[in-house]
């Protein structure tokens, strides 16, 4: 693993054994930055937050409280704060407000290997809990950003697909939100199976609501879209009343409050090819996708559209 890909952790520990041993072993798997002045630590956290902070409780209480405040204020759920303490510290640690914001505790007597494993487990647990969508279990926005950022640098040409449902809001209003959730879960299943049956080199994330994102090799992108659309159309009747199905459209009030015929659920996919050097920021890709989306959305039924601009 190159240093660039390693997760960054900040250490606020005394400059002596056993901590020097900890640092040695942590450096194998993490990008480690040590701090000795609380001010430097806080300032670095503010401007370039790490994945985790290992903080020696008995060193400096004030800075520790500020650190917790920071985590709370920014809802930095994915920033792991791990406290190092001894027996005495354990007795002093009773404030519920502190406990609420802590991710784990380590003991001054722990072995270096234990420290490393506990830290890893803690980070994995955090990503799972804080990011995955509770409905579909798919990675959420933090992971999506990471995957997209990585995709921009990929040597292999990739495609980013933005998936959403047409007329999902109407469906939710007519059938109720738990039925809506079912549709979302099933769309997630279709995406998951279609994509990962074709390639392991892919990413699927759930932005929220009926919005999904996938990243696949460009060469397979169109085929995947076709498959997803086909499977969705086959499954669709399972989610609709016979009446709507026979009629072929919903009858519902539109945004102006007028009763109208509104097309049934369909799936739209906007594909944005990504080759190295084409985009600098993730934002540029999603901007493109939004433009492509507005084209797909105008087409009736389920469709995908690929952005062919340079």
């Amino acid at each position, binding site marked *: 693993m190159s240093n660039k890909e390693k997760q960054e952790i900040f250490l606020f520990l005394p400059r002596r054994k056993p901590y020097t041993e900890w640092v040695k072993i942590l450096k194998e798997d993490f990008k480690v930055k040590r701090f000795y002045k609380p*001010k430097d630590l*806080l*300032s670095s956290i*503010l*401007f370039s*937050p790490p994945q985790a902070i290992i903080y020696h409780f008995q060193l400096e209480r004030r800075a520790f409280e500020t650190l917790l405040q920071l985590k709370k204020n*920014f809802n930095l759920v994915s920033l792991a704060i791990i406290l190092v303490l001894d027996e005495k510290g354990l007795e002093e640690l009773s404030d519920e407000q502190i406990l609420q914001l802590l991710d784990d505790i380590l003991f001054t007597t722990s072995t270096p290997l234990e420290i490393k494993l506990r830290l890893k487990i803690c980070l994995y647990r955090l990503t799972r809990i804080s990011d995955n969508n509770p409905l579909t279990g798919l990675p959420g926005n933090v992971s999506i950003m990471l995957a997209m950022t990585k995709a921009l640098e990929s040597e292999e040409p990739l495609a980013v697909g933005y998936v959403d449902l047409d007329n999902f809001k109407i469906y939710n209003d007519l059938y109720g939100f738990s039925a809506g959730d079912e549709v979302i879960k099933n769309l997630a299943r279709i995406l998951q199976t279609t994509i990962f049956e074709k390639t392991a080199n892919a990413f699927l994330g759930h932005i929220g609501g009926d919005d999904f994102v996938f990243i696949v090799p460009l060469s397979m992108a169109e085929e995947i879209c076709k498959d997803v659309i086909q499977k969705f159309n086959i499954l669709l009747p399972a989610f609709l009343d016979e009446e709507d199905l026979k009629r072929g459209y919903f009858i519902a009030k539109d945004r102006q409050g007028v009763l109208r015929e509104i097309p049934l659920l369909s799936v739209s996919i906007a594909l944005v090819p990504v080759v190295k050097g084409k985009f600098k920021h993730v934002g540029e890709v999603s901007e493109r996708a939004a433009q492509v989306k507005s084209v797909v959305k105008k087409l009736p039924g389920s469709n995908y559209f690929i952005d062919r601009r340079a």
Partner: protein
Amino acid sequence: MADPLEKRKEVKKKIRKLEGLPTLPPVVRKLNALIEDERSSLCQIAELIEKDQVITTKVLRLANSAFYGFPRKVATVQQAMMLLGINVLKILIITSSIFEIISKEDVKLWEHSIGVAACAKIIAEMKEISDPQEIATAGLLHDLGKIIQLIAFREDYEEVRRRIQGGVPLLKAELEVFGIDHAEMGAFLMYQWNLPDRLIEMVNSHHDLSRAKKFKKECALLHYADLFVQARGYGETTYHRLPPLDQRALSILKLTPSEIKEIFLKLEPRLYELKFFTEELKKELD
């Protein structure tokens, strides 16, 4: 003297690694007092921050870091404060380092920047250029490069000064010593810190409008504002005389004589108000 091209690389490398810029102690004290006072509003706090280019840069950097908000979108302190809130500002101030040694001479750079911010805002309002507050921010930050020189390259900075006193024009002296001028240095740091493109372009081109690309009007505006405040004589920069006028400004943004007169009429009371602030700064530094 080192090869300017090599020096340029070295300067950029050092700027890239710059963790932060120190702040004037009296500004920090004032801010703390304002924050502790429950009656003060976010707007009042923003107004004070807008008088200090270092804290302004810090606040904008934080609000624009990918981790917290929307990179390169937040261009004014007011906007940034809405995102960050008081508690975070408090932490930001706690973690700010302060200038250990600063002379009264150096405070004149602050004075000049505040003056340019005020003047830029006046022109923006007059010429109906959008978001005058953002334009004012660019005015405040336009000489950020000089602060960087002052902090990170003190010796080279003195060398530039000596050369200017020897009759070398400022930009030329900077290129000789740093291989890069203060406008580009400031813009480079702002780019590193994810500040909005419009601000960066304005700062980068304030002495050379050929660097203006997407925001020509705004850039010409800042060029005028810098010139006007120098002409009026407010604060001081390493220039001891008027910086040269970039003729391109005249065709990009036309100002009639009566408009220029009006600008100076509006500027005068603003500068007078600001003088209270800067005099207080100087007194506290004594």
